[in-house]
Every structure is written in structure tokens, then in C-alpha cells.
């Protein structure tokens, strides 16, 4: 019971950020789950410790919200994989989140390092 709560909390904690990172990653084109996870890890130079599994609830949530769409395709190695792709709504959402993120970072920075 406790374990589950803790796990859920972590997703909740990351929710906004993780969703934004996924959307940002998909801006370069369709990608499967592993690819997205890899991109986030390498993009952050492995600083962000995302529990790999937490990617999937986030992906399905975004899909249900209509921000991304999924389809099964073949990889370069001829393997079946589910690819996610940004929708128009997803692009708008990314833009909105990005500006909000900038405001947030700016605000924090002003407090932490007052000029």
C-alpha cells in the first residue's frame, strides 16, 4: 500500500515536467518509448533520474488527452514498436508549457540570485 502511494507521488511530482519533456522530445519526430527515455536521459546528461517505467503512464495519459498519437511501426532493425507522435494540440501545449517553464525558472532564479 505504502509502496504504491510513494510511487504514485513520484509520478505526480514529475507529472508536469515529465509531460513537457516527452512533448519536447517528440518535437524532433515520432519516437518509441525507449527512444524517448533515452533522449531524455542523454539530453540531461543522465542528471535526471527518471524511473523508466514511469514513462508509460505519462505516455498513455498524454495520448488520452489528445496531445500525442500512437501507431505501430517497424524499427530500422525490423522490430515492431509503438511510435508516438505530436498532434497539433500537443504542439500548442508544448509552446504553452515552455513559456510557463521559462517564467518559472526566471522567477526562481530572481529569488535565488537577486541581481
Amino acid at each position, binding site marked *: *500500500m505504502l509502496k504504491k502511494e510513494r*510511487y504514485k507521488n513520484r509520478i505526480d511530482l514529475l507529472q508536469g515536467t515529465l509531460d513537457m519533456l516527452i512533448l519536447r522530445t517528440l518535437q524532433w519526430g515520432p519516437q*518509441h*518509448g*525507449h527512444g524517448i527515455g*533515452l533522449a531524455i536521459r542523454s539530453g540531461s546528461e543522465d542528471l535526471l533520474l527518471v524511473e523508466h*517505467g514511469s514513462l*508509460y503512464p505519462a505516455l498513455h*495519459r498524454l495520448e488520452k488527452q489528445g496531445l500525442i498519437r500512437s501507431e505501430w511501426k517497424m524499427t530500422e532493425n525490423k522490430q515492431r514498436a509503438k511510435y508516438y507522435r505530436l498532434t497539433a494540440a500537443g504542439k500548442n501545449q508544448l509552446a504553452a508549457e515552455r513559456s510557463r517553464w521559462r517564467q518559472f525558472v526566471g522567477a526562481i532564479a530572481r529569488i535565488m540570485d537577486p541581481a
Partner: protein
Amino acid sequence: MSWFRRFFRRAKAGAELDEEIRFYLDQETKLRIERGESPEHARQAALRAFGNVTLVKETTCQMWGWTFVEDFVRDLRLSLRLLVRSPLFTAVAVLSLALGIGANTAIFSLADAVIFRELPVRDPKRLCQVRSVHQRGFELVHSYPLYEDIRDRNQVFSSTACTGAFAILESIAIILSNGSQGPLQARVTVVSGSYFSTLGIEAVVGRTFTPDDDQAVGAAPVAVVSYRFWKQALGAEPAVMNTSLLHNGVRYQILGVAPPSFTGISSQHDPDIWFPMMMSQSVLSGESMFKARGSSSLYVFGRLKPGVTPADASADMARVYGDLQKLYRNYNGQRGEAVPMAKGVQALRERFERPLLVLLGVVGLLLLIASTNLAALLLARAVARRHEIAVRLSLGASTFRLLRQFLTESLLIALLGAVAGLLLSSWGAALLVGMVTTSAHRLPIHFTMDMRILAFTAGISILALLLFGLVPALQANRPGTASLARAHTHSRLPAARLLIAGQMALSLFLMIAAGLFIRTLVNLRHLDTGFARENVLVLMLDPRPAYGQQREKYLGLYGNLIGRARELPGVRSASFSNHTFFGGGDSRRTITYEGHITQAPRDERPNLLTITPGFPETFGLSLIAGRTFHDRDDRTAPKVALISESVAKRAFPGENPVGKRFCFSDSFQPQCAIEIVGVVGDVRYNNLRRVSPYALYVPVQQDPVMRGDLHVRTWADPAGMAAQLEEMIRRYEPGVRVLHTVTLERLVEDSIIQDRLLALVATFFAVLALVLSALGLYGITSYGVHRRTSEIGVRMALGASAQNVQWMILREVLVLVAAGGAGGIAAALAVSEVVRSLLFGLTPTDPLIIAAATFALILIALLAGYLPARNACRVDPIQALRYE
């Protein structure tokens, strides 16, 4: 709907998610191997980094919002499996619930038909019935002149109507356009021309009466028939206007058919045919009711004018009666009143209302017992499943999920119970109606499984579900995970024990009730009625088809019937009279005794029986003074009469009544005088509960009647003579119809049908309740023994004897019984006033019955407790200690 399809696509989605995650793990493993990790290590690391795969899947699925339904289906499957795995538990649970729900639905549908349902007429709440209130109770039937007075003098009714307070069985022939059909039996009554329009009833075929059909005496021979009569006797003939009915030599044209739901304004009489009031002289064989203020046989009712309340109507009726009292002496000591008639005529409903409400209470208690019993069983099961619950909680199940699982199981039981109960109820309701249907009366109760009854069943099922499902579920979930995991804890199950004690209380309560009702029935059956009821056969006759409308023609009939009957072997004596004790009918006339200035008060008017001389012998009446009649008391002889003992004491206190005289009129005159020649003992008449003291007997030769009963006292079983006697009448009096043949004992028995019903039903439920609570007690005790196996083992290893152990177990049972018993007796005492009026010859606190019921409860409880206790002392200490 799309959600439905999506729900079934869930399986596919689940497989896709599996594949997606598998792909991820494969990719990650591959990546790690490329980085130089060993294959096994890479796989492990990939899994570790991913987290709890199952939980990820579950959380992902939740994103789609379908888990609730999925969980429900899973719970349902699990519950079904659990129920199938313990068939005995399931059978007991479903059956006890089905009995509870079934009994409630059956009684409710009966009560619904008799008490709660409103008349199927337009705006029934605006109807009011007129009744006369005397110092000693009230009266609902009125004379025709009184109806006219109320109709003409009232200021509150937009329309008034009257109907005969009876539906008499008559012989009717049907005349179709292409020939006629032989006579059949139908119940007929007379109504005013305004009857249907006041009620607001439209015919389904043809038309109903208008005031024009009821203008002049004998002018309009027309009829309206009931829907059932139209279907069954007329074959649902659409051209009903071309059909006529032949009754007492008069041809009536059928005007129309009443709607199927309408069966008259009384739940007791359901006429097949309505005739106009103005035809009543032909319908009722010459007894004119248009002028006689003393002959009351009509219900009078009206529809309130807009804005008028029943209270206004009552005030207006009081005014009308006040005016009438100035004009006629008939209404002295009476007050007029208007009572709402939305549910039909009141007195008849009141007859069944009390017993039905008591029954409703009884079955409610039964359902309570079934539910609490079930709760106790489920509770015991829940505790037995502690390990499972503890494991599930520590594996991460939420309390809410577990609660839902428990409730799903209860829901399944409730559903099965409700369905089985509904099936039981339709059978039970028919059985109940069968029990209250007497040889002469049928109850026109129409059962329909309508929405009201289904809603009632659903309601009580949900109530039961909440009771037996929620308590155990909450109880089982209450203790923390840690304490649950400790299987050692001795569970005394306080909630379950409380439930069992409550059941014991309810069982005792019901047993006391059953005891009281049985004793009442026995008292009533052994009552001295004042006449000998054994070995008498009663044939109710209608000679009118053969003898017509002139009374004088009937004089030879009585002697002929009696003479022919006496010739049959096995007949001791025979007689004829206008009414039979407990035959249902009675006649009363205005009467003035010699030496009295005024007529006898209304409620002291004697019941008039016109009899043949053999009557006192056939009925075994005791002669107290004077003589009975003989054959010489005929038309030419001086008029004579017998009176009952109470009449003698009331009219001629301290004097010898023999030789005294009286008149059937409102003053005494020598020219109408009838001489009293004898005094006979009082009898109970139509009602076993009270003596009907005032009775008067006159010879049928001096006061001929056109209808009556032939009574035959036999040497052996009277029922066996029925066919012979009917054959005799067919042969020697071919035109005389036998309406009904019944033994006198049956007639008396039919009068206490309510008491019999109460005793039967209360006994049935008391036994059922006792069995159920004994089962519950057995269950909880053997469960306790099971839980305490190791404790018992330790005790026995330390030297406790088998008796010690048994006593330890039985002591707990006795505590429960004592608590329950005290509660049951307290409850019985608390409601004693409610049942007092239903009892006869004993008080509701009869100590013998309470003691006997308590004894029975203790006996059964000890038996239920002894079996587990015996098992307890057979525990092998070594085994018991290993058991943990």
C-alpha cells in the same frame, strides 16, 4: 455505445501494453550489452531501472479510467468462485434471504391490494363516503330515503351516488342475438344512475348508466357488466349492446362494460353486473327499499365540490342529519359524517387492515433475522479469511478495494436472494389468498407484479444488503494489517454475538406471538356457540326461478323439502330458515314489546329468523321456558314467536316472558301482536368473538320467505350426504337452485379465518426464525471452538475435563440466550397493546405462553450450542498444540 466496445477492446490494449513494455526492456537490455555489461546482468539492470512492471501496467491502465468496471468484473468472478466453493453456505444464505424477501413481497402485495391501493377512478381523493355515527360505533349502510335526503339537502358534493352494500350470487341467463345460453352464476348489485359518473368511470365498450337510466321504478331494464364477466361469460363480444341478461324473469339490455381495473368500491364485493337502483324491486325479489327508512343496505358517497374539504363535508352532513332528526325518529342519537373514500369503502378494509399490518411487521422481523443471520455468517467467514486479507493488504490492496470485494459478494447473494424471493412471493401470495378465501366468500384481490411491488422488493433487498453486507465488511477491515496477520488473536466477534443475541430476541418474540395466536384460535374453536355445530349440512337455496314473486306460493315448499330430506337414510332431522347461524346474513326489524312505550333501540333490535318447527332440534338450541313451534302454528293459527334469553331479560326483566306479546312496528297495538310462546338460549351469530344476545324466531308458515337454507342433521359425516341431498332437490323440486352446500362446522370455521391465518403465519415464521437463529448460533459457536482449538488443547493438557470444556463453551451460549431472551420478552411486552384486540380469551402477557416460548428457545439454543461444545472436548491436546 462506444464505451461498451472500448471496454471489450481492453483485452487487446492490455496485450499491446505488454508488447510495448517488452520492447522497451529488450531495447534497454541490448543497449546495456552494447555498453559491455554481461547479458544476465543487463537484463536485471534493465528491469531494476524500469521499476515494478505490474504496477506500471496497472497505473497505465488507470489512465484510461476503466479499472473500476474491470475490478467489478474481477470481484464478481472471485465472488462467484467463493460462493460455488462453499455450496452449503451459499444455499443457506440465498434461501434464508429468499424466504425473507419472498414473504415480505407476498404480504406487501396483499396489503397493497387491500389497504394501500386507491380506487381506479378519477381523482379518488375527492370522494367521500357518508356514515352515521352512533354512541356505540358507526354504521356505513343507509336506506334509500336517506340517500335521497343526502342527495337533495347537501351543499358540499358536486354529485352523490349510492350502491348496494352487497353483491349477491344470482342465476342469470344470457340472451344473444342468435339464441340464449343456460343460466350461470353471477354476482349482482344495484347502483344509482349517478354511480359511474360520480366515480368518473368510462365504459371500455358501450356506455355506463346515466341518471336517465334510473328515473322511474322498473322503467329501464338495463345493465352494466364487469370486464371479467364480459370476457368470461360473454366471450368479449364487441356488440355487447345486442346482448341481454335474463334475471328473475326480467330481460335487461346490456349498455356497456366497466374497465378491467374496476371491481366496485369495496374490496370485499366484486359485482359482475350492475343494475339501476330503480330495478331493485325486480333484482332483489320484491323487497321495496324506496320508502323504508328502516331497511339499510346502501353505501352512500359523493364527489366533493372544488375547494370543499372532507371536514367541510362532515360539518354539512352533521347539519343534514340535524335537519332529518326533526323530521324522522330514525336518526335519534346519530350524527352524520363524511370520510375520505380514496381507497374504497372503509369498514371492509378495516377488517383486514390490522391483521395485514401485523403480518407486515412479522415478515419485516423475519427479513431482519435472515439479514442478521447472514451478517453473522459473513462475519465469521471474513474472520476466517484474515490471512487472505492480511496478505492482500500487505501486497498493496487498498482498504477500499477490499471493502468493495466484500460488498460484491454480498451483492451477489442479495441478487440471488431477491430473484428467488420474487418467485416465492407470487406463489406465497396466492397461497395466502387461498387461506383467507372462505367457502362462501372470495377475496377479489388482483395480484399484478407491477412497478410498486418490484420497487418494494428492490428496496427491501437493498436494505437487507446494507445490513448484512456492510457490517461484516467494515468489521473485517477495521483492524490494522499487523494485528490481522497475527492469527492467534482470540476473536470473540462482539458484533456477530450481538447479532445472534438480537436474533434470539426476535425468535422469542415471534414464538410468543405464535403462542398467543394459537391459543386464541383454540379458545375460539372450543367456544360454546349455543348451538350444536357438528353433523349439520347447510344447503343455501334459491327457489325463486320455480316459485316466482308471491310469498304465499312458497308455503308448501318448506314442508316438502323437509319431508323429502327426512326420508333419506342417515338423516336425523331437517329444518328450513331464512338465515343460518354463521351463514353471513341477518335481518332486523323495528320492534315494540308489550308494555313498552317506544320501540326497542336500534342496537337492541333482535336478529329475526323465520324457521320451521324442526329448527331448534336440528341446531340443538336449549329451551329455557315455554315451548318451541309445532306444525299447528300455521297461517290460520295465532301468530307466535320464540325469543332468546337476553331478549327476555332485557324486555321483560323479572317477569315470565311466555305469554307476553310484541309488534313489528314502532308502537304496540293488539291487532299486530305476536305472542311469545318460548324462550331459547343465546347463540353466537356470525361472529365467535361476541355473543349476539338478541334473537327472535317466528314460524316460516306465518312469515313466508323467498330465500333460505335447508339444514339437515345427520347421524354420520354430513359432507358425505351433500350429493344425495342435491340430487333429492333436483328430483322433487327441479326449479329450486342450490347456491351453495357447506357443513355448519365449516361455516363457523370460516368466520375465524383471520385468526387461523394469523396463527398459521405466525407459527410458520416463528419456526423459521428459530431455525435460522439456531443455525446462526451453531455457526458462531463452532467457529469460536475452531478458533480456540489451541486454547482448548492447552486447557485439556493442563487437566481440564471434557465437562469443563463443554461448560466453557455452553456458558457463552447461555449468556447469548439470556440476553436475547430478555430482549424478546421485553419486546413482546412492549407491543402487547397492539395485539390485544386480536386475541381472545387470554391477555397478551399470558405467563404460560411466555414461559413455554422461553423454554423452547433455551432448548433449541442449548442443542445448537451443545454440538460444537461436544466437538470441542474431543480435541486432542497434542494435535491442538501443533495446529498453530
